[in-house]
């Protein structure tokens, strides 16, 4: 009896071993990319995090995309040209002779199908980027009109960001959305092969791609959550490109001899949002004092090893509306103390400083450093650490006390995206600073710019608004961060300001 039990147990263990150990992927001259997390879906309307988007940008094409040399400038992709027909209508001429990976032709119906999906509320995650659209009209097989409710100056840019990927209508009707999300079909340079969850996603080159077949034939995307393990995989040759290298690991990559870091400025601005509805923080002098009290250069040097630049407003230098005349608040503790006294708080104020622990790079350390600096000018800081969804809930309800770390960015590289989508009417941060309520000069400038097609006027409005933003300091402005990837020396790869990995531009030397 006992022997039988033992034999059965042993047999079961061996069977489990056999089931659980499939053969590994063959690599060779293929490319392995390691990201920090596994994707959650391959339906481009169901995710907005960059590790998901990276797959979308290679499987699908959009109507337009960013010029890799000048992110923020549009270049054609599935649309060959576009123009504003009247203030409410944008007309797109489409590329001919393109087909999806399953052979289905790409045409105006596919664009209309995609737009119809995008403007359906509550069933996917990218509605917000397309909420200005009323409908899409098919003019002929290769011409589409997109009609907005109000004039929308950045409509075309919206299609370059997330959610803009063109979907295959026949295929999706044939399968369903759930199957589509795990077995996607696009028009892009790479075809989907397989997805073993939490282990790998495999893509292969689309030989009939309209720009010509990509150079690398097979690409494996591996999720490796641990920062050190990603670097180890790169130096060991198990991956050729890795994302999200933390500044502390840069020297390790460089010392290995086989690899290099690839870094570039992004449009993510790291700031502490200030809840300025009441109390001392409702006083602009107190908010300015906080801005003078923090030594941004020291933080960038010590905590981020120089991979960032200080900012003077919440608008990054990559975005339309950036005002180069606005300089960062200098580090001036004496001025900070004086402003607090002028505001009526000579004996200091209590301020809550909250951040996650690992949501943003070095977030907890950053809050601790800022707390010490604020203490030096008489502020009594209280540092709190939040779990991701707790943090989201506080943001949503606008109920966080004091300062909350955030890194807003615009997917359209436009001031409207980085400020007004958050702060404007209906935006999730509308409540926290009365300076953007209806009737204020800031409100007027931003609302006007949102619906004017006159580019010069929009620029003037945004630059004026940026000055108010700087002076009124509704945020503690810190820095615009860099993205740090790393690659093996034999691979030609350059990090992009939009954080995307575009495989079509990657090759072996």
């Amino acid at each position, binding site marked *: 009896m*006992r022997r039988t039990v033992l034999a059965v147990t042993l047999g079961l*263990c061996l069977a*489990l*071993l056999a*089931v*659980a*150990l499939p*053969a590994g*992927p063959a690599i060779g001259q293929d490319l392995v990319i390691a990201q920090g*997390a*596994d994707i*959650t*879906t391959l*339906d481009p309307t*169901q995710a*907005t995090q960059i590790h998901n988007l990276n797959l979308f940008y290679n499987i699908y094409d959009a109507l337009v995309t960013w010029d890799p040399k000048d992110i923020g400038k549009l270049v054609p992709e599935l649309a060959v040209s576009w123009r504003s027909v009247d203030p409410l209508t944008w007309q797109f001429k489409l590329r001919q002779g393109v087909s999806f990976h399953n052979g289905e032709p790409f045409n105006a119906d596919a664009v209309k199908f995609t737009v119809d999906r995008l403007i359906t*509320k*509550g069933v996917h*995650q*990218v*509605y*917000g980027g397309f*909420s200005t659209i009323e409908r899409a009209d098919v003019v002929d097989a290769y011409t589409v009109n997109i009609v907005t409710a109000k004039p929308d100056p950045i409509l075309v840019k919206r299609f370059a960001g997330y959610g803009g990927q063109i979907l295959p209508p026949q295929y999706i009707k044939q399968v369903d*959305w*759930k199957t589509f*999300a795990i077995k996607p079909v696009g028009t892009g340079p790479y075809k989907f092969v397989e997805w073993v*969850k*939490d*282990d790998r996603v495999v893509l292969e080159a689309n030989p009939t791609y309209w720009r010509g077949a990509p150079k690398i034939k097979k690409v494996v995307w*591996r*999720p*490796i*959550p*641990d920062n*050190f*393990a990603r670097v*180890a*995989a790169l*130096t*060991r040759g*198990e991956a050729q490109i890795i994302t999200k290298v933390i500044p502390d690991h840069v020297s390790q990559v460089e010392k290995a001899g086989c690899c290099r870091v690839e870094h570039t400025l992004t449009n993510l601005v790291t700031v502490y949002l200030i809840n300025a509805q009441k109390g001392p923080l409702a006083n602009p002098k107190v908010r300015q004092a906080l801005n003078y009290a923090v030594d941004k250069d020291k933080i960038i040097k010590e905590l981020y090893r120089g991979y960032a630049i200080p900012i003077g407003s919440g608008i990054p230098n990559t975005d339309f509306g950036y005002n180069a005349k606005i300089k960062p608040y200098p580090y001036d503790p004496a001025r900070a103390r004086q402003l607090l006294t002028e505001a009526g708080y000579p004996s200091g104020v209590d301020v809550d400083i909250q951040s996650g622990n690992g949501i943003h790079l070095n977030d907890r350390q950053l809050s601790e450093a800022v707390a010490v600096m604020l203490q030096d000018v008489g502020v009594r800081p209280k540092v709190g650490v939040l*779990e*991701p*969804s*707790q943090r*989201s*809930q506080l*943001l*949503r309800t606008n109920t966080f006390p004091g300062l909350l770390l955030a890194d*807003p960015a*615009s*997917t359209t590289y436009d001031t409207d*995206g*980085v400020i007004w*989508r*958050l702060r404007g009417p*209906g*935006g*999730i941060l*509308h409540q926290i600073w009365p300076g953007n309520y209806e009737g204020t000069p800031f409100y007027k400038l931003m609302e006007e710019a949102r619906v004017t097609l006159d580019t010069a006027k929009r620029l003037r409005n945004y630059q004026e608004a940026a000055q108010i933003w700087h002076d009124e300091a509704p945020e503690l402005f810190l820095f615009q961060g860099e993205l740090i990837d790393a690659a093996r020396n034999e691979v030609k790869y350059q990090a992009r300001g939009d954080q995307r990995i575009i495989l079509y531009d990657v090759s072996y030397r």
Partner: protein
Amino acid sequence: MRDFLLAKLGHTLIVMFCVLTLVFVVLHLTGDPVMMMLPSNASREEIDALTRSLGLDRPLIVQYGRFLARVARGDFGVSLQHQQPAMGLVAERLPASLLLAGSALGLALVVALPLGIFAAARRGTVLDHLAVGLAALGQSAPIFWTGLMLMLVGAVILRLLPTSGYGTWQHLVMPALTLASYPMAAMARLVRSGMLEVLDADYVRTARAKGLPERWVVLKHTLKNAAMPIVTVVGLQFGLLLGGAIVCEMIFAWPGVGRLMIFAIYNRDFPLVEAAVFVMALVFVLANLLVDLCYAWLDPRVKLRA
């Protein structure tokens, strides 16, 4: 035996109900999945629409009722992040988790048993002190440290094994070693102290007096009697290893349930967390049941009664 199993089944149902209720309440009261699903610059209108479509605008008690009704039918719902059935996602990763936990436990046993017996039989010698010292080290080193050190030495410096991932036996070595370090040490100490207790017992003296060789005394008469606490710990450790593998799975990019669950918790993916916790709790309960059955097998005096 039948009554015993029926009673155990009843206990299991109660435990699972309590676990699910606790998870439901804690999750729903501490976070909101909608904000984690939408981009950070989503509008209020968009947030409200998604909240409604997920049914999260209903009173908590209504959501709880619906949740129980679904679970009773065996339906854990669709993961909010993955848009796929939650239980299916957990089931996909379960083999990897079981493999890792099973290998770690096997490894722990294979090392701990001889080490503990050896130390007990050579009580007070330098070798005993060395074994006890090693065990203390294994128990006190945090798992993330052990994992990273192994990776540094085994993969980066010696280049013997792959740094991370899943697929071949080489991928299994470092995660299993890392995960085994704690139970290995704990069990070695337990075996040693259990053996020491029994080695002084009357029947052992009798066995020796009968002139049985010392090896026979230790293996046949002592070990089996010292086995009860070890079996208890093995059962508990298996449950702990399955749930406690999270850190190990993160470091070595092992596609197990723990890693799936931790990302699900971050994102408040309610259905997915509920399904994963359900499975882990079930494995834990089953492991305990197995321990109870082993008692009866090891010690004829133990009767399985309801």
